[in-house]
């Protein structure tokens, strides 16, 4: 762990630097491929909507005593009926002697099979009814209205806070990226889309923007007064910000993903059914994508937009011109100036008490 800290120090000073902003084409390509695959998965396979959205069939089985043992017996009877569409039913007791079993929509044939299987398992009387969705159109419509209003407000908020519309745009692009990828994973995995999934998607919506704002805040800090600087460009400062917040990004992802991972494991591997895995999958994929997109998409994209601004362009040209001059007349730098300005970081102008000659530096820290 000490090594990660040392790593953090080096990132902070700019001794180690990953070129997130400069190699944006690479990250864009990676994301584009994933997004296209996700979108294709959605178009081809679609979502596997749960009873809550589509409605289904409800069987009411009369048994001797309704308790968890007889509920389990009924659930097993449904699984044994040989109707795959009836898999993963919701089973609950109702009153003292009845058990309700909800499955997805079935054909008359399939329903008869399930009824037969239930009767075999000890139900004295089985009735069936069609049930409508609990997640009506109205819920979806209003939630969508809320989302659109929220996105509108958040665009204004980010713009007002950072005084930079480009960051609003980049933040929304990153958000869309995260949501599409999560949706694609749902389509690919065939996990049921339930109200828990919707909750998960909404959580990601908040998390993705939250994470982006944290990173943008550092970018803003580093690029303050950039127009007066003659040593660093906007892109370099943005990249330094990413490197400086990298340790935070890693730590945050780890602490956020550990509980989600545990829930996903419990839901998918141990239990196999139920709402836990639906929620946990959405969160796990979405949070990974959220952290990734803040670093690899949102900031490079915001920087790219910003670099088009004439003032920023002129400033970058000044910086380059100055550097070219220094290369022409090397004062005492023995080492050649790197192609990418890795060595020049914001740290150079600060007091750096830890900077020691290479020979005096300890090993293994």
């Amino acid at each position, binding site marked *: 762990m000490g090594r990660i800290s040392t790593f953090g120090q080096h990132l902070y000073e700019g001794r180690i630097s990953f070129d997130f902003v400069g190699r944006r084409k690479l990250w864009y390509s990676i994301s584009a491929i994933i997004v296209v695959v996700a979108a294709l998965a959605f178009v081809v396979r679609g979502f596997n909507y749960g009873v809550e959205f589509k409605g289904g069939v409800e069987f009411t089985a009369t048994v001797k005593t309704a308790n968890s043992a007889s509920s389990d017996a009924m659930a097993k009877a449904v699984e044994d009926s040989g109707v795959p569409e009836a898999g993963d039913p919701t089973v609950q007791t*109702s009153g003292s002697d009845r058990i309700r079993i909800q499955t997805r929509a079935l054909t008359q044939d399939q329903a008869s099979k399930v009824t037969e299987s239930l009767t075999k398992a000890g139900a004295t009387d089985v009735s069936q009814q069609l049930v409508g969705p609990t997640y009506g159109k109205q819920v979806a419509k209003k939630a969508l209205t809320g989302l659109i*209003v929220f996105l509108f407000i958040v665009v204004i908020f980010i713009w007002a806070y950072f005084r930079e519309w480009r960051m609003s745009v980049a933040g929304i692009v990153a958000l869309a990226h995260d949501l599409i990828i999560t949706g694609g994973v749902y389509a690919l995995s065939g996990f049921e889309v339930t109200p828990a999934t*919707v909750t998960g998607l909404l959580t990601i919506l908040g998390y993705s923007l939250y994470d982006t704002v944290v990173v943008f805040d550092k970018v803003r800090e580093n690029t303050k007064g950039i127009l007066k600087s003659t040593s660093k460009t906007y892109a370099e400062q943005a990249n330094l910000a990413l490197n400086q917040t990298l340790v935070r990004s890693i730590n945050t992802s780890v602490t956020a993903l*550990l509980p989600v991972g545990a829930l996903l494991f419990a839901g998918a591997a141990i239990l196999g059914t139920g*709402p836990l895995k639906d929620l946990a999958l959405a969160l796990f994929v979405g949070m990974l994508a959220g952290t990734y997109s803040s670093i690899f998409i949102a900031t490079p994209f915001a920087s790219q937009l910003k670099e088009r601004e004439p003032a920023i362009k002129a400033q970058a040209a000044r910086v380059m011109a100055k550097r070219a001059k220094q290369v022409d007349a090397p004062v005492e730098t023995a080492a050649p100036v790197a192609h990418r300005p890795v060595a020049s970081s914001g740290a150079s102008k600060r007091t750096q008490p830890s900077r020691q000659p290479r020979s005096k530096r300890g090993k293994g820290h």
Partner: protein
Amino acid sequence: MANTPKNRGNLPRPRRTLVLFLAAIIALYGLVALINLDTKKGDDSAWKPKLGLDLEGGTRITLEAKANEGKVTKPKLDQARDIIDQRVNATGVSEAEVTTQSGNQVIIEIPGERKAGIVDQVGKTAQMRFRLVWTQNLTSAAKKVDTSAQQKIIDGIDWSKVSLDQMIKAETTGLAALPKSVQPGIAALQKQAAGFVCTPGGVQVEDVSSKPLVTCDTKTGEVQILSPAVIEGSEVKSANQQYNTQTAQWTVQIKLKGKGSDVFETVTKALTPAQNRFAIVLDGEIITAPSSQAAITNGVSEITGSFTPSSSKALANQLKYGALPLTFGLNGSEEIGPSLAGTQLHAGLLAGVIGLILVVVYCLLYYRGLGLVIIGSLLVASALTFVLVLLLGKGMGFTLTLPGIAGLIVAIGITADSFIVFFERIRDEVRDGKSLRLAVEAGWVRARSTILAADAVSILAALTLFIFAIGVVRGFAFALGLTTLIDVFVVFLFTKPLVSLLARTKFFGQGHKLSGLDAAHLGITGRRVTEIARSAEPRTTGEVN
């Protein structure tokens, strides 16, 4: 920079903040204990969170549409489902489920035991109309008289030919002001009124918008002949429960939409000189028939009429979400068991605990001594979340479903981000050569704005979704807002003061090997943190002790 020694005098005293905050949490727990003392035997203990349908079961109510009002169609049933859903989930935190069944039923599943009057609250048609009072102060007949012949006459007349002005005139100057063509109808109405029995339990009348109506106020027994509806319930823009401090009465304040508001202005203007009355009719019953005291131009009206706090709230909810397109009757209600096996809850909780333990281990390995601060903060956040869930469960029916519990666990994990942002800032400042005490303050100033900005996004999401969405999505928004606020409270009132205090200790202040702030751990080679501070800021070293 706000961290010069001079400014530190203005900083809040960390010890006091910490003590007050912890005392506040303990007070909340005390409140739960008090509520628990007050609970009667048989009630659930206040120490147990209210669990949702999936974990604890609840009550299942079946409402069946009555066929007397024409055909029960699917669009009508779906619309009724949506409206009932909004009424049941008005606060958005009880996680009740509403669905349709068999083409003519609406099923409502509510967590917990059956509450009295719930069918009335959610299943009532709530068709509200404003009508003019054509004849007032009639008394109830002793015996019911068959008036179907009169009804036929009334039904046979085209009342839509009567203009609003004529209707108003009929009230202010007398029924003779109405056109001749409708006079037979008036005679029929008067006969109907003479034979009208006002039963205190409620009256059965067919309330048709376009026709005049004979009905009564069951509280006073006053029978009235009313004009065709002048303003429909669908013209209501918003409805809110209110407490009128002057009359010490609960009322329902309604606001009308543009067109309804215009008509209301015309009506009240015309009625005010003689203080004539208008009636507000709900499901065929007069709930109030005030005399007009002033022309109302803003479309705001107050409905009075011996409301209790809960009945005024119920009516406001019913009016707000609109009238049901169908009339429903209760078809059965029964207790239902949980839909998820107990293993799901246990597995979920176990996974959550394991996940959080992993977080703790990671924080300790990475942040060492500071990791303890994170653990403490997470514990405080958990304790605060738990007590608020208990109190909100009691106060406004906040229930926990399994996804809800999972969401809270995850939210607590995300809360850790605020601490991480803060600690990374402190470490950055230490790397810049500040002494720990100064680094804490400087790091805090920077971390604070980041934390607030990021949390503001979450709060915005919670607020907009809570305002615009309905049903379960609203419940999610509530939980998101709650956990985000907890995050802000904990980091401002617990983590920051605690770190400020710890920075004064020898262990952290001088960068002990296990504190997580020693030079080697930060990757600063060769020197101890205090020495770095001394060399960088020689004047401030005297304060590090």
